[in-house]
């Protein structure tokens, strides 16, 4: 069972990223769940999306600690770093989040928002991160993420799909 918390601020597509990830896992025949939480405001407050992916049926779907934390804002990172397991993985948008030096977890930094702005459009930064996550951790395949996008998104499908590829490319480049 893998527990993933995606966090940032409203407007970054945090909830959508969680839904796409959960749907991709389902497409692969796994059990998955997603619970989102957000402020009453349309934009700007901290948003969380908790995803569980499992080979077994999911009993209690609420996350108290996570294996993977994805943070797209400093405020959200600061509030959620304490929930990451010591052997966990952290992925941050490095232009938006400064991480402390002494973290026990593996930290991956990626300029998702900047690259999204330069190559596509700002709002697909979430998909760059998902592509990066999938390539790095193999928790779902790139193909499943794309299928999930096609089944759920009606606008800017091409940009979202390209952003997934871009994220995957960044992840494999950093391996080298």
């Amino acid at each position, binding site marked *: 069972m893998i527990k993933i918390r995606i966090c940032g601020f409203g407007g970054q597509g945090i909830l959508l990223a*969680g*839904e796409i990830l*959960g*749907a991709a896992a*389902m497409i692969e025949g796994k*059990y*998955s*769940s*997603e*619970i*989102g939480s957000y402020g009453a405001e349309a934009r700007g407050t901290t948003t969380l999306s908790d995803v569980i992916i499992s080979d077994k049926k*999911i*009993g*209690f*779907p*609420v996350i*108290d600690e996570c294996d993977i934390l994805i943070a797209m804002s400093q405020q959200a990172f600061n509030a959620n770093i304490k929930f990451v397991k010591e052997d966990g993985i952290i992925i941050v948008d490095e232009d938006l989040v400064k991480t402390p030096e002494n973290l026990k977890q593996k930290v991956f930094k990626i300029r998702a928002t900047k690259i999204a702005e330069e190559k596509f459009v700002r709002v697909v930064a979430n998909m760059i991160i998902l592509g990066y996550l999938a390539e790095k951790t193999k928790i779902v395949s790139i193909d499943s993420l794309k299928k*999930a996008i096609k089944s*759920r998104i009606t606008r800017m499908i091409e940009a979202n799909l390209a952003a997934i590829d871009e994220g995957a490319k960044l992840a494999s480049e950093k391996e080298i």
Partner: protein
Amino acid sequence: MGEKYFIQGNIACAEAAVIAGCRFFAAYPITPASEIGERLSELLPAVGGKFIQMEDEIASINAVIGASWAGAKAMTATSGPGFSLMQEGIGYAFMTETPCVIVVVQRVGPATGQASKGAQGNFYQSRWGTHGDYSAIVLAPNSVQEMFDLTIKAFNYAEEYRTPVILLADELTAHIFEPLEVPEKIEIKERKVAVDYSEPFFDSKDPLKAPPMPRLGIGLNVLVTGSTHNEWGYRATSDPMIHRKLVTRLYYKIEGNAKKICEYELDINDGSKIGIISYGCSSRSAYGAIEILSEHGLKISHLRLKTLWPFPDWAVKELSSKVDTIIVPELSLGQLVREVERASYDKTKIISLTKVGGGELIRPQEIVEIVRRL
């Protein structure tokens, strides 16, 4: 295997309603039920149905009752504050035998409480929310799949027994995204419609069956009143016999079918001395606890209620006959536990795990702690 979707519980409910034949929805938006109406505002017009956002919940339930008498399968969706406002109309619907579905997504109360936070404080309200003697069917989903399946069931029961049916969900099951598999074959029950005067509209020779329901506007003379009425709907408010007959029938057409209506998951582990009885979001806490305990070699039996009312006494008795202790976790100060205490054998020790969550669910660890202290 049917199509699979990764969707939210409230959306699953809306989709199921349309598949069940719902063609009228009237509601006032309220967290955590709003997505149901939002989705139906798209789905219903596309199938020739009507979506109306009403001025409040009192108007909503009355619009639903009117639509049902006009022949439509009708639904509303609300949360605690709206459910309280609807009680007068719901009583009228029980008394006039109006099929309709009322979705209640429980949130923290009393009053407006905490808007987007889940709770289980409406267990008794769902059964005795309105005054007088009657019986109610209340279904309690605990997953996205059941938000779908039990919405279909709610419509089927409403039509079969000519009665309001309450789908008592909670914030977790309403807002969580999970896989939904739409069954390839779905059984849909249709209303028995009165087309002439051969059978009374408000009495039935078979007390286990609902009378046929006329549809207003097709030419049959019918009086629909919330006051005591005879088999043709005429007011008869000073005749004890007529009142007795009416209310007894209303009660018995549900209670007499309890064994048919009640659904539950009863997982009895041989050799287990401890049982849990739960429903809705707290059943997910129970699953979590049972998982942790089984990793430590401790077997737990579990009764998970899908139908809350009529209350399945016999299922509680069965579990009670097999275990020494029953733990009842619920996100309230103790409602379900009273029914468990009433229905179980005296020898079984009942432990009430209550929680004023304030937005937090019962953690599996809280149940595990109780088991450890036994």
